[in-house]
């Protein structure tokens, strides 16, 4: 079955630490990839997306993600996190017309 997996369920970092959240999908065909973020008390919003072209995608607020086709991965990175990055992060993949989400990763940044 098609699925999206996020490796870390709960991550705690100090401010200025580097962040990498793992995401893998199980589908061998064409796939569009997304990262969504949900800040406390707010809607889910799009952080960045990959459709084609440069596999290194830059999003809002200093986030980036790298698509590695051979590893079926789309990991999210940020070199230096801030307290305001505390949120829940969802990886998603559009597979055969449907958007499938990972389980989500809760990021807690300590000031």
């Amino acid at each position: 079955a098609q699925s999206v997996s996020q490796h870390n369920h709960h991550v705690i970092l100090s401010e200025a630490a580097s962040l990498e959240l793992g995401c893998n999908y199980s589908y061998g065909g064409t796939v569009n990839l997304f990262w969504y973020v949900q800040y406390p008390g707010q809607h889910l919003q799009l952080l960045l997306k990959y459709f084609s072209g440069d596999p290194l995608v830059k999003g809002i607020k200093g986030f980036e993600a790298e698509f590695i086709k051979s590893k079926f991965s789309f990991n999210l990175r940020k070199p230096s996190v801030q307290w305001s990055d505390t949120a829940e992060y969802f990886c998603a993949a559009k597979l055969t017309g449907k958007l499938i989400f990972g389980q989500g990763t809760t990021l807690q940044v300590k000031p």
Partner: protein
Amino acid sequence: SQTIHQWPATLVQPVGSPLSLECTVEGTSNPNLYWYRQAAGRGLQLLFYSVGIGQISSEVPQNLSASRPQDRQFILSSKKLLLSDSGFYLCAWSVQVGNTIYFGEGSWLTVV
């Protein structure tokens, strides 16, 4: 600009009671519409999606159903709620040929 609204925002219902969550999209025509559920520790699960009026695809077996009586209206229903139906329900839309999906504010359902 396009907007999406869903209601009610919070709902507490007894086991066995019916459910109706409504969602409307404005500013676009013929959108793809989705219902997701976010249960604690389980991420976002796609429940239903619709590519047009009266066209509903169900992703998981359950006692929930969805209907699309109008182009920009999507309704999530149940005849008899179970405790396991508790969760955060999100309506969402995307353009037919696009890929980015936009979410509503969400509805908290607690079944007691």
